[in-house]
């Protein structure tokens, strides 16, 4: 009986000591989380200062800087670790919300691209009219006309490819949103 009591006490002490170690590790992780949070806040401040015009085929400066800073500094999003004061399930929910925002942002970018496609179509139509006019007025040789029509066709092909890529992208984003919703409900 005495031996049994001794064993129980020893195991209890071991559990207690391992618990203390875990808490100590948790604290260091929290500190890391705080540092990362501060870094993120600085990044947000920097992004707030940036503004620029949107161009076709070019993302906003803000997104570019964000990507560049990630590539250069190798600072991730603390995936799988503590996010500020959040832990476990709450952290998972926060990450899911963050991912959802990314999906929404990307969807908005694709809609912007659709506007670019519409503008591009107008430009192609204008170019086509220009060539027709030149042909009618007789200033255009056959070779030159062929060359110009080739350029128009190429632009049209690129435009259609982009249109297809946008449609595919939108469909995939919708699918990913559904997946995310499932994860959000499960977690």
């Amino acid at each position, binding site marked *: *009986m005495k031996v*049994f*009591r001794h064993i*129980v*006490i020893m*195991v*209890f002490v071991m*559990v207690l000591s391992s*618990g203390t170690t875990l808490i100590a590790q948790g604290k260091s992780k929290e500190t890391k989380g705080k540092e990362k949070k501060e870094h993120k806040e600085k990044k947000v401040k920097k992004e707030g200062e940036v503004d620029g015009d949107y*161009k*076709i*085929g*070019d*993302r906003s400066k803000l997104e570019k800087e964000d990507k560049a800073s990630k590539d250069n500094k190798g600072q991730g999003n603390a*995936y*799988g670790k503590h996010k500020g004061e959040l832990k*476990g*399930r709450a*952290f*998972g929910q926060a*990450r*899911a919300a963050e*991912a959802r925002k*990314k*999906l929404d942002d*990307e969807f908005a*970018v*694709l809609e912007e*691209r659709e506007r*670019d*496609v519409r503008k*591009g179509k107008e*430009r*192609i139509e204008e*170019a086509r009219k*220009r*060539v027709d006019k030149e042909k009618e007025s007789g200033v255009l040789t056959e070779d030159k006309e062929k*060359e*110009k029509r080739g*350029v*128009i066709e*190429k*632009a049209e*092909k*690129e*435009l259609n*490819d*982009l249109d297809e*890529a*946008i449609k*595919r*992208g939108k469909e*995939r*984003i919708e699918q*990913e949103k559904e*997946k*995310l919703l499932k*994860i959000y409900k*499960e*977690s």
Partner: protein
Amino acid sequence: MNLLTRVLLVFLVLAIVACRDTKKEEEETKAALSKIENIESQVEGISEEVDTQANEMESALKELDSI
């Protein structure tokens, strides 16, 4: 079994149960996070594809303006 041993045993069982629950939750969170990361990488793939295509379209349109 005296009172002290009983109390210690109860504490021990509680500690083990608490640890197991945390581990389960951590595993679930880890799985969810890896799924989320996968989704984000998919989104990055989409944006890269569209960006490349948009750049090609822009250069084609510039060429178009020069004719």
